[in-house]
């Protein structure tokens, strides 16, 4: 990606954030479903631009992760707070912060991992028939796994095979490319790295495993 394009994306992202703030203010003065939709859309676009910029920085060799300890239960609560569940009232969503409490703390870049998970969750909410779940668990050999599952039609074959091709109308594969990058950039001094696992089992299953 060209540096000019990156700079333009950066400006566009900031403008979208400003637009979001104005829509927020307008919504407070005069709440309406259309304003809410516009706000949600502005936030989603801004998030996609952040993902693009992160991929650009990775290509330029300037992406640096900020790894530090985070309370996993707080992290789950913050992630949920950013998810617009009111737009999906027909979907049963489950996430038990108690599982995070049992884990305690984990060292990771909460900002970037949250982007990856929110993308996966929005994707699941879009494709689910009736239910979406977010779980977190420790890996037997070390590591921590976030899993997003839905009961939709599952991932297309080429995506399961590791491609980032067309997933569905309106999906660019950006989210999965971003998640794979962020997971892989998480490492431990012992040499373990994070990764993403995709599977189909009565719907789509997206796992982001942190080392």
């Amino acid at each position, binding site marked *: 990606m060209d540096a000019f394009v990156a700079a333009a994306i950066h400006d566009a*992202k900031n403008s979208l954030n400003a637009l979001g703030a104005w829509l927020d203010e307008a919504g407070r003065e005069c709440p309406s479903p259309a304003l809410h939709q516009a706000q949600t859309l502005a936030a989603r676009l801004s998030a996609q631009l952040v993902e693009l910029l992160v991929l650009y920085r990775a290509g330029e060799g300037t992406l640096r992760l900020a790894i530090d300890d985070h309370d996993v239960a707080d992290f789950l609560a913050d992630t949920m707070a950013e998810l617009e569940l009111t737009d999906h009232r027909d979907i049963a969503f489950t996430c038990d912060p108690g599982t995070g409490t049992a884990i305690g703390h984990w060292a990771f870049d909460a900002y970037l991992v949250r982007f990856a998970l929110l993308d996966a969750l929005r994707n699941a909410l879009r494709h689910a028939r009736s239910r979406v779940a977010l779980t977190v668990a420790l890996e037997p050999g070390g590591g921590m796994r976030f899993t997003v599952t839905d009961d939709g039609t599952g991932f297309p074959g080429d995506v399961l095979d590791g491609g980032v091709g067309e997933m569905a109308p309106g999906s660019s594969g950006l989210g999965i490319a971003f998640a794979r990058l962020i997971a892989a950039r998480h490492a431990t001094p012992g040499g373990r790295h994070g990764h993403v696992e995709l599977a189909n089992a009565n719907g789509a299953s997206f796992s982001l495993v942190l080392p």
Partner: protein
Amino acid sequence: MTIDLRELRGLLIDDVAEMRTTVRIQLADAGLERCDTARNVKEAVERLGANRYDLVICDYNLGQGADGQQLLELVRRRQLLPPTTAFLMITGETSYEQVSTAAEYAPDDYLIKPFTSGTLHTRLERILEKKEALRPVYQHMGERGDRAKALATCDALLAQPSRYSLDVLRLKGDLLLQTRRQDEALALYEGVLRQRATPWAEVGRARALAAAGREDRAREHLNAALAAYPNYLAAYDSLAGLLKKTDAAAAQQVVEQALKVAPSTRRQRSLGALALDNRDFSRAEEAFRRAVEKDRTGFFKSHDDYAGLAKSCVEQGKTQEALSVVKEMGDHFSRTPELAARQAAVESLVHSRAGDSAAAKAALDRALAVQQEAGLDPTTALEIAQACFADGRNDEARRIIQAVAEEHYEDDTVFAQAQSVFAAAGLKEEGAIFLEVTKKRMIKLNNDAVALAKAGQLEQAITMLQEAADRLTSNCQVSLNAAIALLMHIHKRGPDADRLAQAHRYISQAIVANRDHAKLPEAVALYRKVAPEGAPVLDI
């Protein structure tokens, strides 16, 4: 636990008026109605000096070449921000990584723009709850804290299950290292790392290993940590500190890498000093110039930046530029003996290097005259020593270095500076021997006195230690040994108001020099044991 933000007082620091207005409204929405504002570093420092805040909310980008991270370091170092005050940094998407992996002085939390009032509220509650839970430890930290009590409080908190156990462990590790209990610190960090990998415990383990003399292992762990966490500034700082002793060129590279992660005047200064040692004068000039020019607030600069810039200029033949820098140095700082002596010493060095020996001699005489009048900090004294070498007054230089080294024989930083002075004069080998001999002499003095005391010759031990403690007022070990010998005398031979007063004076002297000295608790405990009711109380 619910915290009512209405009862608290906050300070919001942001250089952009619109942002101040917006965030202030969001803070009021969250319940924080009593909130002062500051537009820049100067106002922030004034407000923090005049008032007590429960919470500081600060934007990372403060304009004028200043950022919130440097401000946080400054106010923590100057003790303007008590550990009980919560500090929330607000950052943009592109600078959060510099805040979240900050080294020694990390904010309590950071919030990435844009955020909603709801998110701000949640974060504020969370950090205030944590501050409250850790308050029993924090109240024993800071300027007048008692680290032994802080450690005991950590243990009491760790005895009960709490969601903040890890935060307590982190504090405990730092406290153990500060009080030189490196073996316990090492066990603590290894315990955490057995559970899972995390950068703070990696760096803590390396610091504990280094403190225990296992520097090779410490370097290995830090290199492995940096491969996994290339953004973790504390790892760079620790590694550069270790390498400085053995491989200044490698240390310079590590500081260069850290500067790519996060800009900081302190690291530019450190880079400049290493580049000067490595005779990489153009790089030194660049680093010091950045330190001097980038910070337009003036709050983060030090005498070292101007002195380093002048020295790196003159080494490249830019004499006039170097002299201008010496002059500018006088315009930026308040007039103190340190400033006058430093300016004169650096001016002398510049003239010596440029071959003007008459001007060099005149300037050096001015520096030495200030030194006669006032006690100077070790850095300034060593600068004068360097000017003495440059002017051919080698004996005078050695005398100054010896005095500094005897006072600060336990301080590795001062010893490294002294070694640099010898190296700059082309006397690297002599310097290494000279400093080693000085250190050994000080250790022998203490050991001999202790041996005399153990052999029952307490009077002789006291005479020996008092003579040294009166001469070396910044030497903690000597001061504390003198106090302990006096107190042992009282303990064995009965009350003696004069000896008690002298012991009190030596312990106080040690507290001023280094309140974290490992021997201090022993001396304080003994004083409290033998001091009768109504005796002067120790101010710790």
